[in-house]
């Protein structure tokens, strides 16, 4: 029985529930068992939530039996990055030792919406402490320990949604919710061989999620497939009076989306210049796989200091969000305080005029980037320049607060609040996944989802899964 339902996409699991081949309670119990048994092996689990999960699953079973099916997520268990508030005495640690006993009396809107869809919350998943908000350069910056990649436990998952990435990749939950301020959904998706969707800023309510940077934070799904991402996004998206930044329209997932013409994809000039050989080869092969349905051309974004603008916004907003924490010496209690030239205490050293100037530039950037992107359905690029790095090494030589960090797609996408999906594009010689991302115009999640879905219909990378611990 064990492992019989792991690694099945949501639509398939929903079909099994609908046909009574598995019950919501049985499915939830299987994933609870897997999460409990294997989660600690990957340092992916913070808190298992069996009582809450089984209560939701039992209600789902009752509703489904009575013909009250709430949709594809009804009875499908999931995991939450441990920065989403949960009531009922379940801790919300933000991945950080100083908050290990923190509890809330309310649920994050995302949690409420998934449970309203009948999806049982199986557990709270590990993350880089404070979502990397104090600056980090090493994978051990997590209350749960360094997050191990299911493809090779000597490599890390990427961060900061590390437990979300590991748990889905290892088949411990069918899907998970992560968050991205700058890279925290797409990089774990890349490193763990998953589909990860960073929605448009404001598409998903941030109410109840730890605030790192109010104008950069996004919540989104990590799943086995692009189709799964669309299903989950529809459930969690939409206006929320408790988050004034939410878009007023609901998101309706369109699994049949088709523009009625060939897609137009732009590839930024120089996008492959710093890519490892396998990343480059797999990206080129991915584009070839799409040739029958896309026109591809090299493009250039307008000239702006994207990295610097997004960095200043990140520095100032995170310094403000954690002002009290800094003043109380909180960083001393972190697993990996951000010293080594990346001190969080340097972040308040930004003049107000520099922050406001960055926000003014951001508006000009956003408009001109949108004008450029209007000529394309999506911009494609490798999600990361490398596969997962060794777990005992620094994962980059410079922090994102250093100029020239070089993440053009990340700084544009996050700075301008654009949606992007990463899906696996192949593997390197060490058996580690590589990723390709498709970034679309604001609110065009259905477009990037459709392209990613078409790509996955032509390839098999997303059907490969890592072995079980001990295999």
């Amino acid at each position, binding site marked *: 029985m064990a492992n019989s339902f792991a690694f099945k996409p949501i639509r398939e699991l929903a079909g099994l529930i609908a046909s009574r081949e598995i019950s919501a309670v049985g499915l939830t119990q299987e994933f609870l068992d897997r999460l409990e048994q294997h989660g600690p092996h990957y340092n992916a689990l913070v808190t298992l939530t069996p009582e809450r999960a089984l209560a939701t699953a039992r209600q789902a079973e009752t509703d489904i039996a009575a013909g009250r099916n709430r949709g594809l997520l009804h009875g499908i268990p999931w995991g939450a990055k441990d920065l989403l508030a949960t009531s009922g005495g379940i801790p919300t640690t933000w991945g950080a030792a100083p908050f290990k006993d923190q509890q809330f009396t309310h649920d994050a809107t995302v949690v409420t919406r998934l449970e309203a869809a009948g999806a049982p919350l199986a557990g709270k998943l590990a993350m880089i402490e404070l979502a990397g908000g104090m600056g980090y350069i090493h994978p051990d910056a997590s209350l749960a320990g360094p997050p191990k990649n299911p493809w090779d436990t000597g490599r890390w998952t990427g961060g900061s949604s590390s437990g979300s990435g590991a748990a889905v990749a290892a088949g411990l939950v069918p899907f998970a919710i992560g968050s991205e301020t700058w890279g925290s959904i797409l990089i774990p998706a890349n490193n763990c061989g998953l589909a990860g969707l960073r929605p448009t800023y404001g598409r998903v309510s941030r109410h109840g999620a730890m605030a790192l940077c109010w*104008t950069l934070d996004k919540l989104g799904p990590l799943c086995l497939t692009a189709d799964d991402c669309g299903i989950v996004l529809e459930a969690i998206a939409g206006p929320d009076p408790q988050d*004034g*930044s939410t878009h007023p329209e609901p998101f309706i997932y369109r699994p049949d989306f088709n523009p009625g013409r060939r897609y137009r994809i732009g590839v930024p000039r120089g996008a492959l210049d710093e890519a490892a050989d396998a990343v480059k080869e797999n990206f080129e092969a991915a584009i070839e796989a799409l040739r029958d349905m896309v026109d591809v051309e090299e493009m250039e974004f307008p000239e*702006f*200091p994207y990295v*610097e*603008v997004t*960095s*200043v916004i990140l*520095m100032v907003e995170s310094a403000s969000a954690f002002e009290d924490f*800094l*003043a109380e*010496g909180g960083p*001393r209690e972190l697993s990996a305080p951000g*010293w*080594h*030239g*990346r*001190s969080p*205490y*340097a972040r*308040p*050293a*930004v*003049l107000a005029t*520099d922050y*406001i*100037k*960055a*926000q*003014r*530039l*951001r*508006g*000009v950037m*956003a408009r001109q980037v949108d004008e450029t992107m209007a000529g394309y359905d999506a911009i494609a690029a490798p999600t990361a320049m490398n596969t997962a790095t060794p777990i005992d090494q620094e994962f980059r030589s410079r922090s994102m*607060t*250093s*100029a*020239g960090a070089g993440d053009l797609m990340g700084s544009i996408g996050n700075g301008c609040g654009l949606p992007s999906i990463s899906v696996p594009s192949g593997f390197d010689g060490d058996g580690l996944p590589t990723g390709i991302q498709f970034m679309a115009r604001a609110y065009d999640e259905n477009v990037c989802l459709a392209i990613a879905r078409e790509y996955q219909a032509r390839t098999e990378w997303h059907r490969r899964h890592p072995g079980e611990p001990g295999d």
Partner: protein
Amino acid sequence: MTTNADNSLEQELLFAIIKERYGYLLTDEQLDSVRTAIVGQREVFRPIREYKLTNDVEPFSNFRPFRGD
């Protein structure tokens, strides 16, 4: 026009502010780390300051007046 020397002075003054505000929490080694980071941040500010915007370009913010029911 600011010079490199002016920039260095600016970073030293910013460091002095941080030291005044948080120095009691930090070791000498950590203060060195703060100084290094502040000097690095100069390169982040430079292209933003050099970018020319016209007077009418507003911050890209989402503030809306609030009125409860």
